[in-house]
C-alpha cells in the first residue's frame, strides 16, 4: 500500500505538525460528535436497563388485584383458594396479601422564614413482615437503614423522606382513620410500585409529597380493626411464561377468585398498567424523543463541521496533488494517501469517541436517575447498535470529507492543479455583486466584499458551519426560555392560585359547600374562593384521543384564573362548551368552533341516590318540609358513601359516556392535558342540575376543590393561619399551597431540564469547536494572500480589520440563517416531547444577546491563534509557498 511509502508518510506527519490546531480541532469534532452521540444515547437507553434491574431486584409484582373499594377479604379464606390454584397451575409462583389504607402526615419543613407544618396525605401499606426476602413481592431498596424494628416502627418511602428531610430514627406523626400515631422511621426505602409517586391513575402529576409508609400487616390490621383482613393481592408469575400465558393464567385466576368470593374483587392491574411503571414508561418515551433527537443533532452538526474543514484542508493541497501526479504518482496512489489519512483520522476519532462516550454514559444515566428520583442502581449495557451507528457515521463522514476533495483534485490535470488559486475565480459578476457594486476602491471595504463574493465556497462553508452551530444554540436556548417563560406566565399571570383545598369526594352546593365557601371567604387575607370540579375524561377528535382532566369553574369568569385567549372570539361559556389549552388544541388539530367528543364518568350510585331523594321529597309531601327531609337524607348518604358518590381516585376503572361538545376557546397555558369547562356544563351531563331546576330546588352543583386567592401570597405566616383554620373543616383531604404545587411541577420537569442543560453544554462546546475550525481554516487558506498584503506594507491592524470584517459578515449571515431552523426544531421538540406540558416557543432577549454576542465572541477568539500565526508568519517563505 502506498500509504506506507516513506514520502507520503512523512508528508502526512508534516501536514499534521504544520496544522496542529486544525487537526486537533477536526479530531476533537470527531471525538466529540461520536462521543456525545454515544454518551447521550446510551445514557438514556441505560435508564431502561437500570429500571429492569431495579424491578428484578425487588421482585416487582406481575399483577395486582384489589378488592372493591371499602371492602376487605379474609386472608385465610383467600389463601386457601390461592394455594389450591397454584397447585394446579405451576406457573403461579407467589402471592402476597397486603392491607392498604389512606393515611395523613403532619410534617414539618424548614423554610427561609420559619418551620412550616404541612398536612399531607398518603398511604399506609401493611405487609407480611415474616416473609423471607425471596417470598416477598414488591420488596424494598433501602436508601437508609434498616435499623432495629419494633412495635412503633415503619419504613418510609424515599421521595417523601427527601421532601421533608426525614431520616432513620426520626419520628413521623401519622393519622390512620382519624387516629394519631407517632411512628419511628427505621428505614428509608424505594419500592418498585412508587418509583414515581402518583397516588392513582387519575392523578394529574406525580407528587413527592404523598407519603407512603410500610409497616407490619398485623399492626395495621390492629390500628384499623381489620384483624385477619386485607384488600390487596400482589402476584408473581413464573418468568418462563409468555405474556399471553401470563394473561390467561391471571384472568382464569381472577374469574375463579371472584366466583369463590362472591365478586369481591376489581379487575386485575397488570404490571405495565401499574401507575408508577406506566407513568415512567410514558415519561421515558417522551424524553426519548429529545434524548434521541438531540444527540443525532449534535452528531449531525459535528459531521457538517468535519466535512467543511477537512474538505477544505485537502482542497488546499491541490498543488501538492498536482506535484505528486506530475512526479508520476498515479491517481490511485494519491487517492489511497488521502483515503488512508482520512480513514485513520476517522477511525481513531470514532474509537476514542466511543470509548469515552461509553464511560461517560454511566454518568449521564446516573444524572438522569438522580434527577428523576430513582434509586441510583445504574447498570451499563454496551449497546452495539449505538456504538455501530456512531462508529460508522464518524468514520464515514471523516473518510468522505477527505476523499471527495481528493477525487476532485485528481480529476484535474497536473497543470491545472499546479495553478495557484484554490478556487478558479470566475469573471462573471454575480447578481449580489452587482447590487453591492464596487464603485470606488477602498481597502477596508472592497477587499472584504470581493472576498465575500469571490471566495464563494469559503463563504458558503463558513455560513453553513456557523448556522449549524447557531441552530443548536437556538434549540437549546429556546428550550430553556420556553419552559421558564411558560411556568412563570402560568403562575403569575394565568393562575392566581395560592391555596387549594381538596375534598375527599364531591361537596355539593346546598349540602355544605356554600357554608364552607362563606366560612373561608370571611377569613382574614382571603380575597376570593373559587369552587372547582375536576374530573377525568377522554376527548376525541378525528380519531385522535387524549386522556385529560376537566377542570370546571363555577362561573365563566373565575376570579382565580385568567385565560390567555389565542383569538378574539375565545370565551368560556357558562352553560356549554369546552376550552382547550394550546398544547391539546395543537396535538389534536382542533381550533375554536370545532366539535369534539368527550367522555364523562358514569356514577351509577349518584343517579340512584338522586332518585331516592326525589322519592323522599314526594313522600314528605314536598314543600319546605320535604326539602329539609331530602337534604337530611342526602347529607347522611354522603357521609356514609363518599367514595361511591363521586369518581373516587382510588378506583382504577372509570366508565365513560360520550357526548359531543363545541370548543369555545383555546387558552395559552403550560398544561398538556387540562380542559376547562364550567360546573353547570358538567352538572347538566351528569343530570345533577335536574334537581336544582325542579320544584325540589336543591342546588347539588358538585365541587371537588376550592381554589383560594390570598391578598399576600408570599406571606407564609398568613397562609399557615388560613390553612390551620380550614383544617378544622370536615371532609378535607388535603390543603396545598400554590407555591408547593409549582415546586412539584419543577420536580416533574427536572428530567427534561437536565437533558436540556446537558444539551446546552454540549451545544456550546460543539458550536465553539466548529466555529473555531471554520474561522481557523479561513485564515490558513489565505496565508499567501495575507503575506502578500503584509509584504506590500499593509499594517497588522488593517489586515486584521479586513479579515475580521469578512468573518463578521459571514457570521452575521450564518446566525440569521441558523435561527429559523433552530426555532422550528425547538418548537417541534417542545410540542412533541411532553405529555403533561406544552410550552410555546419563546426566546428571551437575554438569550438573543448571549447568542449573538457569544457567537461573535467565539469568532473573535477563534481568530486569535490564526492572527498570532499571521504575525509570526515568515513573509519571505509564505509569499512563495506554493501549497497556498
Amino acid at each position, binding site marked *: 500500500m502506498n500509504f506506507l511509502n516513506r514520502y507520503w508518510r512523512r508528508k502526512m506527519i508534516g501536514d499534521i505538525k504544520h496544522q496542529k490546531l486544525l487537526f486537533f480541532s477536526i479530531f476533537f469534532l470527531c471525538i466529540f460528535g461520536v462521543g456525545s452521540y454515544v454518551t447521550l444515547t446510551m445514557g438514556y437507553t441505560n435508564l431502561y436497563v437500570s429500571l429492569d434491574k431495579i424491578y428484578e431486584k425487588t421482585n416487582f409484582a406481575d399483577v395486582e388485584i384489589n378488592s372493591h373499594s371499602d371492602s376487605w377479604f379474609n386472608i385465610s379464606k383467600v389463601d386457601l383458594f390461592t394455594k389450591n390454584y397454584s397447585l394446579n397451575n405451576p406457573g403461579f409462583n407467589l402471592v402476597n396479601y397486603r392491607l392498604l389504607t389512606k393515611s395523613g402526615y403532619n410534617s414539618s419543613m424548614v423554610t427561609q422564614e420559619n418551620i412550616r407544618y404541612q398536612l399531607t396525605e398518603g398511604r399506609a401499606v401493611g405487609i407480611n413482615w415474616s416473609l423471607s426476602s425471596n417470598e416477598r413481592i414488591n420488596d424494598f431498596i433501602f436508601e437508609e437503614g434498616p435499623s432495629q424494628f419494633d412495635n412503633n416502627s415503619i419504613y418510609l418511602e424515599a421521595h417523601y423522606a427527601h421532601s421533608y428531610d426525614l431520616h432513620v430514627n426520626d419520628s413521623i406523626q401519622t393519622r390512620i382513620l382519624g387516629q394519631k400515631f407517632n411512628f419511628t422511621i427505621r428505614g428509608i426505602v424505594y419500592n418498585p410500585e412508587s418509583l414515581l409517586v402518583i397516588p392513582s391513575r387519575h392523578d394529574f402529576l406525580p407528587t413527592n409529597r404523598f407519603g407512603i409508609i410500610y409497616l407490619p400487616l398485623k399492626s395495621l390490621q390492629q390500628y384499623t380493626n381489620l384483624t385477619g383482613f386485607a384488600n390487596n393481592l400482589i402476584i408473581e408469575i413464573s418468568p418462563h411464561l409468555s405474556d399471553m400465558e401470563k394473561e390467561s393464567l391471571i384472568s382464569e385466576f381472577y374469574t375463579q377468585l371472584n366466583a369463590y368470593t362472591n365478586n369481591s374483587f376489581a379487575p386485575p392491574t397488570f404490571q405495565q398498567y401499574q401507575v408508577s411503571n406506566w407513568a415512567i414508561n410514558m415519561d421515558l418515551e417522551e424524553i426519548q424523543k429529545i434524548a434521541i433527537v438531540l444527540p443525532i443533532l449534535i452528531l449531525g452538526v459535528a459531521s457538517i463541521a468535519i466535512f467543511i474543514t477537512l474538505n477544505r484542508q485537502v482542497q488546499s493541497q491541490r498543488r501538492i496533488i498536482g506535484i505528486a501526479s506530475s512526479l508520476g504518482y498515479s491517481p490511485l496512489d494519491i487517492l489511497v494517501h488521502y483515503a488512508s489519512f482520512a480513514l485513520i483520522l476517522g477511525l481513531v476519532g470514532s474509537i476514542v469517541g466511543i470509548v469515552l462516550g461509553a464511560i461517560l454514559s454511566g454518568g449521564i444515566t446516573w444524572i438522569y436517575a438522580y434527577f428523576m428520583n430513582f434509586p441510583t442502581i445504574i447498570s451499563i449495557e454496551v449497546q452495539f447498535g449505538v456504538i455501530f451507528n456512531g462508529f460508522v457515521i464518524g468514520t464515514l463522514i471523516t473518510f468522505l470529507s477527505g476523499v471527495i476533495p481528493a477525487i476532485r483534485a485528481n480529476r484535474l490535470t497536473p497543470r491545472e492543479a499546479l495553478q*495557484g*488559486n484554490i*478556487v*478558479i*475565480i*470566475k*469573471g462573471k459578476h454575480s447578481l449580489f455583486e452587482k447590487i453591492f457594486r*464596487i464603485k*470606488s*476602491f*477602498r*481597502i477596508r471595504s*472592497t*477587499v472584504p466584499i*470581493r*472576498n465575500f463574493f*469571490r*471566495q464563494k465556497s469559503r463563504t458558503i462553508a463558513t455560513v453553513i458551519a456557523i448556522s449549524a452551530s447557531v441552530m443548536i444554540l437556538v434549540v437549546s436556548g429556546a428550550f430553556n426560555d420556553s419552559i421558564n417563560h411558560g411556568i412563570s406566565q402560568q403562575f403569575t399571570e394565568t393562575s392566581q392560585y395560592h391555596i387549594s383545598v381538596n375534598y375527599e369526594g364531591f361537596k355539593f352546593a346546598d349540602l355544605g359547600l356554600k357554608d364552607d365557601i362563606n366560612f373561608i371567604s370571611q377569613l382574614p387575607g382571603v380575597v376570593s374562593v373559587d369552587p372547582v370540579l375536576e374530573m377525568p375524561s377522554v376527548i376525541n377528535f378525528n380519531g385522535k384521543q387524549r386522556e385529560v382532566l376537566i377542570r370546571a369553574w363555577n362561573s365563566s369568569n373565575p376570579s382565580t384564573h385568567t385565560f390567555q385567549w389565542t383569538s378574539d372570539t375565545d370565551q368560556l361559556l357558562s352553560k356549554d362548551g369546552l376550552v382547550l389549552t394550546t398544547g391539546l388544541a395543537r396535538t389534536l388539530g382542533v381550533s375554536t368552533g370545532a366539535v369534539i367528543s368527550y367522555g364523562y364518568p358514569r356514577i351509577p350510585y349518584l343517579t340512584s341516590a338522586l332518585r331516592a331523594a326525589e322519592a323522599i321529597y314526594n313522600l314528605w309531601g314536598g314543600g319546605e318540609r320535604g326539602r329539609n327531609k331530602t337534604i337530611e337524607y342526602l347529607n347522611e348518604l354522603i357521609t356514609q358513601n363518599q367514595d361511591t358518590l363521586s369518581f373516587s381516585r382510588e378506583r382504577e376503572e372509570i366508565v365513560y359516556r360520550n357526548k359531543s361538545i363545541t370548543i369555545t376557546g383555546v387558552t395559552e397555558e403550560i398544561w398538556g392535558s387540562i380542559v376547562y369547562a364550567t360546573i353547570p356544563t358538567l352538572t347538566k351531563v351528569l343530570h345533577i342540575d335536574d334537581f336544582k331546576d325542579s320544584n325540589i330546588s336543591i342546588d347539588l352543583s358538585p365541587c371537588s376543590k376550592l381554589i383560594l386567592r390570598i391578598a399576600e401570597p408570599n406571606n407564609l405566616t398568613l397562609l399557615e393561619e388560613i390553612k390551620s383554620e380550614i383544617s378544622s373543616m370536615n371532609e378535607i383531604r388535603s390543603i396545598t399551597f400554590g407555591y408547593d404545587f409549582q415546586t412539584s411541577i419543577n420536580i416533574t420537569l427536572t428530567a427534561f431540564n437536565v437533558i436540556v442543560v446537558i444539551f446546552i453544554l454540549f451545544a456550546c462546546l460543539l458550536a465553539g469547536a466548529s466555529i473555531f475550525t471554520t474561522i481557523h481554516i479561513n485564515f490558513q487558506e489565505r496565508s*499567501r*494572500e495575507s503575506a*502578500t*498584503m*503584509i*509584504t*506590500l*506594507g*499593509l*499594517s*497588522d491592524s488593517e489586515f486584521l480589520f479586513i479579515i475580521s470584517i469578512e468573518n463578521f459578515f459571514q457570521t452575521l449571515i450564518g446566525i440569521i440563517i441558523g435561527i429559523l431552523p433552530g426555532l422550528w426544531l425547538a418548537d417541534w421538540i417542545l410540542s412533541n416531547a411532553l405529555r403533561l406540558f406544552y410550552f410555546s416557543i419563546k426566546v428571551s432577549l437575554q438569550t438573543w444577546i448571549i447568542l449573538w454576542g457569544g457567537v461573535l465572541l467565539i469568532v473573535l477568539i477563534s481568530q486569535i491563534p490564526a492572527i498570532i500565526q499571521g*504575525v509570526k508568519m515568515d*513573509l*519571505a517563505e509564505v*509569499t*512563495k509557498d*506554493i501549497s497556498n
Partner: protein
Amino acid sequence: MSALTLINLENVSKDYTMGEVEVNALSDLSLEIEKGKFVVLIGPSGTGKSTLLNLISAIDTPSNGRILIEGVDITFLTRKQRAQFRRHKIGFIFQFFNLIPTLTAVENVEFGLALVGVTDSSGNISYSTKDIHSTAMDWLDKVGLAHRARHFPSQMSGGEQQRVAIARALAKNPPIIIADEPTGNLDFRTGIKILKLMKELNKETQKTFVIATHNSQLAKIADFVISLQMGGVETYEQIPHDDLDNLIW
C-alpha cells in the same frame, strides 16, 4: 558613501538556525547601490540572493551588520515601522506574481496605491478614490493592460499577471523595486517582454530596480551586477546590453 548611494550594506551577515544546524546564508557582506540603477543579482541557487533581497526590503533582519536605505538605518526597526518602510519605499514583484485573486487587475493596482496615496507634481498626497483609480488606470495603460482592467487574475496569463504586479509595484512611486526571480515562472518569450518592460520603466522613472535571478545571462542587461558565488561576492558596473530580443539564455 557617495551622495548617490541609495542602499548601503555594512558587514551584513544572515544566519538561519534549523534545529541544531546553523546555516550561514550571507556572511560579512558590504556593498553600495546607487540611485536609479538597474541592478541584477546573480548566483546559483542557495547563494543567498533571496536572503539579500529580503534584508533590503525589510522583510527580514540581519544577524549582524547594518543596512542603510537613503541614509536611514533600517536594521532595528520595529515590525510596524518595517511595514511602513515597505509601504513607502519598496515595490515588490514576486516570482509567483501574488496578485490578490479576489481583486480585479485595476483593483490590485489600486490596492498598492491606496496604501500610500497619490502624490501630484506639487507633492500633495491625495487618497481620493478617484485619483487612485485614474492613477491605477494610467499604470495599467503603461504596462499595456488597460483593456484587462476589470479582469480577475485567474482570467489572465502569467505574463499579464506579472505586468499587473509591475504596475502595482511602480504605481506607489517607491524609490526601490525589488524583484525576486520575476521571470522564474514565465516562458522565455514572456520573460523577455517582462524584462524589457522593467528596463523601460527603469529608464523612464529612474527607480532603482534590484532583480535577483539564477540565470547569469541576465547579468548582461544590468548597469550594476552583484554576483554571489559560493566563494564570496563580486560587484561590478557595466554598460548594459540593450538588445534584449537577442538575449540568449
